[in-house]
Each structure stands twice: as structure tokens, then as C-alpha cells.
């Protein structure tokens, strides 16, 4: 493993000034379950790891009209949080299948986002839930929608002296719910061949779609917000037909590649299957809680 220095930053300010000083050669260390392996396997060059787990605000998760998730909050605290379970089920779906439970003890949702894997499980769920990132740099903070955050495989909107502080998820509307699922060859411990997150808002009689957000993973260089597929549903009756139209629209925006985990045609096909299952999953959750 390549040699590097390690600093456990004690404040946000210290973390930022370290990033500002070392630029691209510094990386933020949170759960480390991706980063440590990447550095070990020489897939990423670093001189300095800045550990932010000891900074309190990075570990906070709470709901006060919107859900605030500190960048270092590990998966198990996300799916273990009662407000998350009540209001953001897609987040439970996705964070409980990232690696095994040992990974979930450390892997953070912020790290999953900053690692910017096209197949990351939490990102389609976050996009479906309309989450935004709070980013801090030497010149203050800014907000970026999650669907804008990833710019390519392993690439993000962060500049070298910025870091992700927290994620903010707006309060879901009434008669709404969300769902995330992925397809993998095994039942656990795999990278998504395709992942689909969906949030749905229905009319009070559950007969009509008021709105929906559909997001796709592992079918492009970054997780995708399937905007058209989402908009199609607004005002449509809750029926197989309208769901099928949305599925086809989702398939249209998918631009998958073929690799050892799946072929392009297989992924295109699965986008249709999983979008349908994600929408139906969200719908039945609305009906259950009603």
C-alpha cells in the first residue's frame, strides 16, 4: 500500500484548510470502505487522508421538517433512524444493502455519494427523494441537487478545497412514499447491475399520480434523474398503462455499457423491469400506510 499521512480533523475549518493546503493529493476519509481499498489497490493516489469522523456535525442525523444527514453518518444509523423509516423508506432500502453489515457499520451515505460510482445504491434513492448536498469551501457554503453532484465515474462537483458537509431531504408530501431496488446476480454483496429509485405522490383517493421522481443507477456514467419518465406520470391514473409508459421513458434515457457485470441490452431490459417494480413498491407503501 502506498504511503500517506493521516490527520483526524477536529473542526470543519481545520478540514477545509487541510484540503486547501494539499489540493488534489488530499482525500476526505469517512467510512473508508471504498477509499481505503482504492488506495491499497493503487486506484487512487493520495498524500493525506483527512478523517472527519471526529467532527460532531458530520455525525448528526435528525429530522426537523427536513431530514439532515451529516456526511459521515454510517449506513446503519441511517436505516436505524425512526424518521427515516417513517418518511424516507427508499433510503432504508438502499443503505441496508450497501456491502454487508460490517461495511454498513462504517460506510457513510456521504461517502457513497462522494465516491460517485455510477452504480452507487444510495444515490438513486437520494435523487428520487429530492435530496440536496450542502458543500463547504474556504469561501462559504453552497447547495447542489444530488442529481447535479456526480459529474462522471469517481468525479464530483466538489472542487479540490471543498467537502460535503451534509445531505438535506425535504419533507415528503402526504400520500407519498418511496422505494429503491437494484438487480444483482446474488442476493447480497454485489454491485448493482441496475438500480432504480422512485418516489411517488398520489391523489388522496390513490387513483391518480400527482407527481413522481424516478432515478436510475448503473446505466450511465453517473446516476440519472429520469426527468421525463417522472413527469409523464403527473396527472395520470394509477394503472399498468401509465406505469408502462414511464418504464419505457426510463429505458429511453438509459445509456448503459456492457461490462463483466451485465450487457447493455440486459441493463436496458432491467431498467424497464425495475422501474415498474420500484413504482409499484412505492404505491403499495402509500396504500399500506393510508
Amino acid at each position, binding site marked *: *500500500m*502506498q*504511503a*500517506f*499521512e*493521516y490527520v*483526524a480533523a477536529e473542526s470543519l475549518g481545520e478540514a477545509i484548510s487541510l484540503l486547501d493546503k494539499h489540493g488534489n493529493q488530499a482525500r476526505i*476519509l469517512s467510512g*473508508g*470502505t471504498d477509499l*481505503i*481499498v482504492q*488506495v*491499497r*489497490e493503487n486506484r487512487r493516489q493520495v498524500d493525506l*487522508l483527512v*478523517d472527519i*469522523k471526529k467532527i460532531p456535525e458530520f455525525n448528526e442525523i435528525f429530522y426537523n421538517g427536513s431530514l439532515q444527514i451529516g456526511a459521515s453518518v454510517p449506513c*446503519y444509523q441511517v436505516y436505524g433512524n425512526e424518521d427515516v423509516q417513517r418518511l424516507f423508506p427508499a433510503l432504508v432500502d438502499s443503505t441496508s444493502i450497501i*456491502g*454487508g*453489515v*460490517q*461495511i454498513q*457499520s*462504517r460506510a457513510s451515505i456521504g461517502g457513497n455519494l462522494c465516491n460517485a460510482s455510477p452504480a452507487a445504491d444510495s444515490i438513486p434513492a437520494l435523487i428520487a427523494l429530492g435530496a440536496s448536498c450542502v458543500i463547504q469551501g474556504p469561501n462559504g457554503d453552497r447547495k447542489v441537487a444530488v442529481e447535479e453532484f456526480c459529474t462522471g465515474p469517481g468525479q464530483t462537483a466538489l472542487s479540490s478545497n471543498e467537502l460535503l458537509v451534509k445531505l438535506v431531504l425535504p419533507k415528503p408530501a402526504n400520500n407519498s412514499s418511496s422505494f429503491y431496488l437494484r438487480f444483482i446476480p446474488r*442476493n*447480497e*454483496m454485489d454491485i448493482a447491475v441496475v438500480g432504480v429509485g422512485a418516489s411517488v405522490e398520489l391523489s388522496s383517493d390513490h387513483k391518480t399520480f400527482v407527481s413522481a421522481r424516478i432515478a436510475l443507477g448503473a446505466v450511465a456514467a453517473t446516476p440519472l434523474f429520469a426527468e421525463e419518465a417522472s413527469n409523464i406520470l403527473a396527472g395520470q391514473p394509477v394503472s399498468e398503462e401509465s406505469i408502462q409508459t414511464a418504464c419505457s421513458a426510463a429505458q429511453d434515457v438509459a445509456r448503459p455499457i456492457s461490462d463483466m457485470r451485465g450487457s447493455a441490452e440486459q441493463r436496458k431490459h432491467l431498467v424497464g423491469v425495475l422501474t415498474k417494480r420500484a413504482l409499484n413498491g412505492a404505491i403499495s407503501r402509500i396504500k399500506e400506510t393510508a
Partner: protein
Amino acid sequence: MSRKVHVQTQINGDSIEFLCEPRQSMLEVLRDDLDLTGAKEGCNNGNCGACTIMVEGRPVNSCCMLGVEAEGSNIETIEGVASPEGLHPLQQKFLEHAALQCGICTPGFIMNAKALLESNPNPTEKEVRFWLAGNLCRCTGYDKIVRAVLDAADNGEDDL
């Protein structure tokens, strides 16, 4: 080679100090520097669970954690599971059910199963299988491992 860092931590109830390079994984520190070789290296990238330890009561792949991150934390390894009074119920049930063959994955399974039973004292078979999915065993076909964990659970029954 970068300079070594001084780390103070708790391992199996004892206060331990060690020096390590930042690039050394917790697994490497345990095995090569502290001679606690119960945690095994099977894959070194978080996919086999053979290196599972407990950090602050949570199961962790020690290959995906840096030794320097142990500063100030409370760590438990397989070496700390049995007490002077005898084996932990999980250890006993693994023996009774013949839940090991070569045994290389056993420490990791026991550590992760221990974490499961501490958070969910009476899991269903499905819950056991989901929780242990991050631990690979190539010998047993898992059948006897799952039975051993179910048997060690609160109800003491092999509830299948």
C-alpha cells in the same frame, strides 16, 4: 514509508498502545504488530468477512479500517469472546452443530453473529442469513452455521 503514529485504544478490555504507519490496516496491526491472529485475511477488500472485529459494539471489516482510526475506540476481537468461565454460547453451538470444517472463516462468523444476537436476540432464519451474507464460508454450505446461530439465540431453540 511515512512516520509511525502513536495510537491508544481498548482491545478486549485492555488498554493497548501501539505505533503504526497510517497505511497499515487495523487487520495488519492486529495480526502482525499485536500478534492477535484470530482475525483472518481472506480478501482484503471487505467481501469475505474473515477479518470481522467489533468496534464500539458494531461489526467491522478490519481490512477496511486503518490502524490509526482505532485511536480512542473500544475494540473486541475473537480472542476476547471466551471468558475464564468458558466458551461463549455461540462458540459452544458452533462446536455442537459442527458448524466449521477448515475453520478459517469461523472467527469472522462468530464475531458477526455475536453482533447480530446483541442487536437482535431472537432472529429468524432469514434475518440470520441476511446479516451473515458478508461472511463467506466455502466448506460448510452454511447450513450448520445458520443452525448454530439460531440455536445460540435467546430462545435456545433451533426454530426452523
